[in-house]
C-alpha cells in the first residue's frame, strides 16, 4: 500500500524503537538488581549458598600448595569434588587477603558479566547491529537462575563464561580465510573448552557440541579437535590422578555418580521453560530454520547439547544452575534469530512487516515480565515494588517469579537470591564467637564459622554423602570421634551428612540452640550431658 507508507512506516518504526528501548530499560533494571545483590554478597563475610565455604577451602589448600582431593577416612575428613581452575584463579587473592568470600564472589560476578559481554558480541557479530545484541546480553543476566548463582563463591558461572567464550570463538572458524588465523582460533577454542571442563565437569556438554559442530562443518577438523581435547584433557586428567594417588578420580568422578530423580529434572525443565519461554520459542524456531533450511550454527548445536545436559539436574545435589549453559545458548540464538528475522522483513510491504516489527520487542518485554525478581525492602527497588504492588515470596523481602506467591518452588531450585541483612551479619558473628569459645574441633556443615574462628575445617558433608551413596565411604574414624564426643560443637544446616554420621550425632549430641542466618536455621548440637567429659 504505497499511499500508507509515508505515514504508517515512520509510525511503525518509531513504535518498534520505543518498544525496543522499553525492553532495554526493563532488562537494564535487572542488571542493577544483579549488581546490588552482588555488592551485598561480596560484603557478607559468612556462608550464603550451601557449599561456598568448601570452595573457599579448596582455594586455601591450593594457596598452601596442597591438593584438595584427599582421603576422607582420615582427619580432617575433607575432600573437594570439583576440578581446580576456579579455585586456582582465586589463589593470588588468598595469598593477599587470606580466607574471605569476597574475592570468589567478585570472580563469580565478573564471570557472569564477561559471559553476558560475550553474548552481546556474538549477537552483534552474527546477527547485526541494533539493540538486539545488548538486549540478549542483558536477558542472560536477567534470568532468575543466572541472577542467583552469578555472584556466589562457586565455580559454576566461571564454567559458563569459559563455555560461552569457547563457543563464540569457534562459531565462525570456517569462514576465516587464512590458515594461520584458523589454527589460532582452533587452539583458542580448544583451550577455552579445557578451561571450562577443568572448572566444572558439566562443561562436557559444550565440548561435545563443539566437536559435533566442527565435525558437521568439516569432519577432519572435528576429529582433530576431538583428538586434541582427548590428548590434552586426558593427559591432565591422568597427571592429576597419579599426583593425588587416585583421589582425583575417586572424588571428582566416582563420587559424582548420584541417584537420578526424573521428576526433579522435569520440574526444573518446566520451570526453565516457564521463565525463559519468550526467548526459548524464537531460539528453537531459529534452530529449526537452520536445521531444515539454512546451515546449522554452533549456537544451535550448543543449545541442544546444553539442554540435554540440563536434564542432569535431576541428579542428587544438582539444581536449576544446570540450565545456565542452556540459558546462555538461548540468549545468543534468540538474539541472532531475531536480528536476522528483522533484517528480512519486507520493507516494501509494511502491513506484512508490522507484526514482526512489534513482535520482537514484545518478546523481550514479555521475557522481562516473566523473570521478575527484585528485593522489595531495599531502596530504590522498594518504591518500585510498592508501585507494582509486589509482595515478597522469598526470604528477606525478595520477590522471585520462579516461586509461587506462597513461596513454593520445584525441588532442586536454589533457595537463594535474597539480600543479606544486618541481622544476618550479627547472627554470623554470634556463630563465629560460639565456635571460637569451644575447645577442640567443631564439626560444621558450613565452613566459614570454623575458618573465621581459626579452627580446622572438618569434613565436606555433601562429599561424604556423595561417597556414601556410592558405597565408597566407611567413616570409621569420624564415627569414633563422634562417639567419643571429640567435637565440642556440631552445627547443622540441611543435614547433608551420610545417615550413619547423622545417627552418631543424634546419639551423642543434643540440640542446644538454633540461630537463623540468611533465612536458614543453623542448629547447634552439644555433647549430651550423660556422656560429656
Amino acid at each position, binding site marked *: 500500500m504505497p499511499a500508507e507508507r509515508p505515514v504508517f512506516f515512520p509510525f511503525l518504526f518509531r513504535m518498534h524503537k520505543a518498544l525496543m528501548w522499553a525492553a532495554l530499560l526493563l532488562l537494564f533494571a535487572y542488571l542493577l538488581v544483579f549488581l546490588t545483590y552482588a555488592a551485598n554478597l561480596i560484603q557478607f563475610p559468612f556462608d550464603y549458598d550451601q557449599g561456598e565455604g568448601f570452595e573457599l577451602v579448596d582455594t586455601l589448600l591450593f594457596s598452601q600448595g596442597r591438593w584438595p582431593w584427599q582421603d576422607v577416612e582420615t582427619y580432617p575428613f575433607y575432600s573437594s569434588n570439583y576440578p581446580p581452575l576456579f579455585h586456582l584463579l582465586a589463589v593470588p587473592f588468598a595469598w593477599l587477603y587470606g580466607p574471605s568470600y569476597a574475592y570468589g564472589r567478585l570472580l563469580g560476578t565478573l564471570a557472569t558479566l564477561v559471559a553476558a559481554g560475550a553474548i552481546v558480541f556474538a549477537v552483534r557479530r552474527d546477527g547485526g547491529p541494533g539493540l538486539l545484541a545488548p538486549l540478549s546480553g542483558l536477558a542472560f543476566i536477567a534470568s532468575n537462575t543466572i541472577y542467583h548463582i552469578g555472584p556466589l563463591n562457586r565455580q559454576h558461572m566461571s564454567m559458563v563464561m569459559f563455555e560461552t567464550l569457547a563457543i563464540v570463538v569457534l562459531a565462525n572458524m570456517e569462514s576465516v580465510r587464512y590458515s594461520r588465523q584458523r589454527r589460532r582460533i582452533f587452539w583458542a577454542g580448544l583451550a577455552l573448552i579445557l578451561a571450562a571442563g577443568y572448572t566444572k565437569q558439566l562443561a562436557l556438554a559444550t565440548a561435545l557440541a563443539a566437536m559435533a559442530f566442527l565435525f*558437521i*562443518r568439516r*569432519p577432519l577438523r572435528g576429529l582433530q579437535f576431538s583428538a586434541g581435547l582427548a590428548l590434552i584433557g586426558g593427559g591432565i586428567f591422568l597427571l592429576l590422578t597419579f599426583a593425588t594417588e587416585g583421589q582425583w578420580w575417586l572424588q571428582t568422578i566416582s563420587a559424582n555418580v548420584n541417584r537420578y530423580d526424573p521428576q526433579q529434572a522435569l520440574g526444573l525443565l518446566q520451570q526453565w521453560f516457564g521463565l525463559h519461554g519468550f526467548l526459548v520459542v524464537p531460539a528453537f524456531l531459529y534452530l529449526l530454520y537452520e536445521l531444515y533450511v539454512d546451515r546449522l550454527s554452533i549456537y544451535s548445536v550448543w543449545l541442544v547439547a546444553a539442554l540435554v545436559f540440563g536434564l542432569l539436574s535431576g541428579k542428587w545435589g544438582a539444581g536449576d544452575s544446570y540450565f545456565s549453559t542452556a540459558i546462555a545458548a538461548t540468549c545468543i540464538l534468540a538474539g541472532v534469530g531475531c536480528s536476522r528475522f528483522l533484517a528480512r522483513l519486507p520493507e516494501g510491504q509494511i502491513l506484512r512487516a508490522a507484526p514482526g516489527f512489534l513482535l520482537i520487542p514484545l518478546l523481550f518485554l514479555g521475557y522481562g515480565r516473566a523473570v521478575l525478581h527484585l528485593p522489595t525492602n531495599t531502596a530504590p527497588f522498594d518504591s518500585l515494588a510498592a508501585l507494582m504492588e509486589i509482595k515478597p515470596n522469598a526470604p528477606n523481602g525478595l520477590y522471585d517469579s520462579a516461586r509461587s506467591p506462597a513461596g513454593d518452588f520445584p525441588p532442586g531450585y536454589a533457595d537463594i537470591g535474597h539480600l543479606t541483612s544486618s541481622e544476618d551479619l550479627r547472627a554470623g558473628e554470634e556463630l563465629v564467637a560460639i565456635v571460637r569459645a569451644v575447645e577442640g574441633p567443631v564439626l560444621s556443615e558450613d565452613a566459614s564459622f570454623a575458618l573465621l574462628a581459626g579452627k580446622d575445617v572438618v569434613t565436606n558433608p555433601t562429599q561424604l554423602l556423595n561417597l556414601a551413596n556410592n558405597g565408597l565411604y566407611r567413616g570409621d574414624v569420624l564415627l569414633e570421634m563422634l562417639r567419643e564426643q571429640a567435637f565440642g560443637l556440631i552445627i547443622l544446616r540441611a543435614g547433608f551428612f551420610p545417615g550413619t554420621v547423622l545417627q552418631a550425632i543424634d546419639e551423642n549430641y543434643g540440640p542446644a540452640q538454633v540461630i537463623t542466618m540468611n533465612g536458614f536455621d543453623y542448629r547447634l548440637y552439644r555433647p549430651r550431658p550423660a556422656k560429656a567429659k
Partner: protein
Amino acid sequence: MAVGENTRPILFQGHGLLRAILPTMWERPLSKRQLGLLLALAGCAGSVAVLAIDILDAGREGGLGPAQSLALGGTLLILLVGLSLLPLGDRPA
C-alpha cells in the same frame, strides 16, 4: 601379458582415486542427508540400548522406569529428526 601387469595400473589408479576422494570427503561439510543418517543411526542405537537395559539387567523389575522413559523419548526424537532430514539431499547441514 601377465594378469598383474594389467591390474597394477588399475589398482594404482584406484589408489590414486581413493587418495583423492578420502581427504575431500573429510574436508567437505556433512550434507543434510548424511547428518540425518547419522542421527537416525544414533537414535536407533540409543533406543535399542535403553530398551536393552531391561534385558541385560535381569534383576530389574517393573518395566520402563521414569528415567528410562525420558531417555527413550529422547532417542526416539533423535531418530525422527534424523529421518526427517533424509529427504533434504546434499545441501550442507
